[in-house]
């Protein structure tokens, strides 16, 4: 029964909540990115690759210009460029979107591994550089429960939460959002009404590059201060799972990312609980929980998710 006590202990520990938030943040960026792309009808499983590029170029920018903020800008530029490749192939040339995205993932792994040595002088990982400073809410009282919970978080965390609202607003409350949804559900009808299907899809895919690269940059310049080879380690795929589990809505993505983040944080807490002596071999069993949940939900056993009707379908301009 030790384990139940340990779980309760974790819930009572403020660190659990801050760990949850910081684990959910990179997922949230990428999930929202994937959402923009898929809402317009272009699947983007390349989130993993774009995050990796974002993480890498974030550190490159920091190393070259001495400021992690410039790192973030570089990361966004690189992320958007990678997404542009995906958009170009899959929108203009009607390439298979899954294959084109697979190519981007491979390209990201190849490029980051390839450039690591010429730029940083050694393979595997970079040195440690400046990070984006955390936002300290001193008025909460250093050491208080609330302070330990939310008093010292990266600005990325706040940005991700704000972006949930912004995304919701764009997709459901603006003219652009109406067009996005129209193109994702029925591109023929949208085209007939004079909406530029290609233009809207380009916008969606580029947004996915922008947001996913921010998620990646958070991992390097926001959290760790360095880049290590393949440091995203599947986070792009978890983000994809979160987007699906959240039923292709920003709010859903938020809850799914928090759930996955909490699973991660609980894992950390249970591992480090001295009274439990859980061996690290159990860690993978916790890590598979998000994927099992998503699989069950996708299969329709619990709840029902629905993707945009034209998701994954290339569209050929008429005339």
């Amino acid at each position, binding site marked *: 029964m030790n384990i139940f006590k340990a779980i309760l202990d974790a819930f009572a520990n403020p660190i659990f909540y801050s760990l949850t938030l910081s684990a959910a943040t990179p997922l949230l960026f990428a999930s929202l990115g994937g959402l923009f792309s898929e809402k317009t009808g272009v699947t983007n499983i390349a989130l993993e690759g774009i995050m990796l590029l974002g993480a890498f170029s974030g550190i490159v920018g920091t190393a070259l210009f001495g400021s992690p903020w410039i790192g973030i800008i570089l990361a966004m530029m690189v992320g958007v460029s990678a997404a542009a490749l995906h958009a170009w192939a899959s929108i203009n*040339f009607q390439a298979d979107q899954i*294959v084109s995205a697979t190519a981007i993932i491979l390209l990201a792994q*190849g490029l980051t591994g390839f450039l690591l040595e010429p730029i940083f002088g050694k*393979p595997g990982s970079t040195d440690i550089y400046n990070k984006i400073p955390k936002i300290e809410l001193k008025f909460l009282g250093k050491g208080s429960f609330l302070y330990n919970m939310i008093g010292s978080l990266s600005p990325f965390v706040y940005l991700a939460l704000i972006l949930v609202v912004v995304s919701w607003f764009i997709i459901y409350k603006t003219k652009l959002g109406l067009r996005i949804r129209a193109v994702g559900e029925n591109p023929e009808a949208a085209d007939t009404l004079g909406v530029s299907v290609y233009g809207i899809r380009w916008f969606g895919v580029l947004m996915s590059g922008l947001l996913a690269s921010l998620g990646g940059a958070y991992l390097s310049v926001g959290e760790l201060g360095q880049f290590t080879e393949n440091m995203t380690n*599947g986070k792009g795929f978890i983000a994809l*799972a979160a987007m699906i589990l959240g039923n292709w809505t920003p709010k859903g993505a938020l809850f799914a990312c928090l759930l996955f983040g909490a699973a991660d944080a609980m894992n950390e807490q249970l591992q480090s609980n001295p009274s439990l002596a859980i061996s690290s071999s159990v860690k993978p069993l916790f890590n598979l929980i998000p994927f099992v949940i998503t699989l069950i939900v*996708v*299969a329709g056993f619990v709840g029902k998710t629905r993707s945009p009707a034209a998701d994954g379908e290339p569209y*050929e301009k008429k005339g």
Partner: protein
Amino acid sequence: MRRMIKKKWMRIAIPIISIIISLLIASIIIIWIGEGSFADRIDFLVEAYTELIKGAFGNKTAVMNTIIKMTPLILTGLAVGFGFRAGVFNIGAEGQMAMGALTATIFAVNAASLPSFIAIPLTMIVGMLAGAVWAGIAGFLKAKTGAHEVITTIMLNWIAYNITNWAVTGPFNAGGGIPKSPEIASSAKLPNLLTSQASFMSFGILIAITAAVVMYIILYKTSMGYEVKTVGFNPFAAEYGGINVSKNIILTMAISGALAGLAGTLEAIGLYHRFYGTLSSGKGFDGISIALIGQNNPFGILAASLLIGALRTGSNQMQFAGVPKHIVMIIQSIIIFLVAAERMVMTIMGWNKKKGAK
């Protein structure tokens, strides 16, 4: 149909042109990272490619290493290619390979009492079954609930990754630094076809080539192959024509998974003689590239596996010339990007001018 009607020669020409373009881009990158005058950089480029070719084919050991790399790639390429033919995208070869390897290894570790001629085929069957079941889950979900196989196989990949990881660090751990399973019984080890100095090469390659031939026969000479291709070409027409589409989807996924499971099994019983949790290192994903480059044709897949296997092997030697081996991933990504966006290649070559007529 959204796919443009291609002439037969284009099916061969597009991958070849994509390969050439990707090598050109790689050459530019290598020249760019080189140092000194332009002539020095050209020398550097020539040296890099010479090392690449030497590393892949330069001597007996190099050729053996290329064949060893090629073996699982043939099988994952066939796995993905067979799926494509039936209209399902099996992106889960990675997970099926790992589950196949894990299950086969568990069986093979305990197979000491069986003679080789029983232990080896049985181990292979066990590994194929594990892969088939793992992929079959995705097939079943697609057929029964409509869950998209790309999503489910991605989830199954990560579940498999964590299960195998747990197995080799926990209950099935042989101790020592690197997580690994105990060694398999010697009766379950695949005999060697060739040896050279300290290295060896098992019969695995012959099994992989046989699988390619069998797939060719199934696809082109049997009614089952005809059904699979019909479902892939147009599921509605297939249903109308009396083909059980659900059954076909599940069966296709299972066969695809069995091929991937066999890839993992051969690695375990032919090469490592045990299972290292993170076995695949992208071979399942490479299957996608290989199926595309080989245009889903079993013999095309053999050729594509040779190409990727040689690049991967040769790149280790190219590192000594000062070019990081990751260049191969860049080359590979450009190839599949171009093959996927074949219209891009057709535009570059000016082949689709008549497209307007449609």
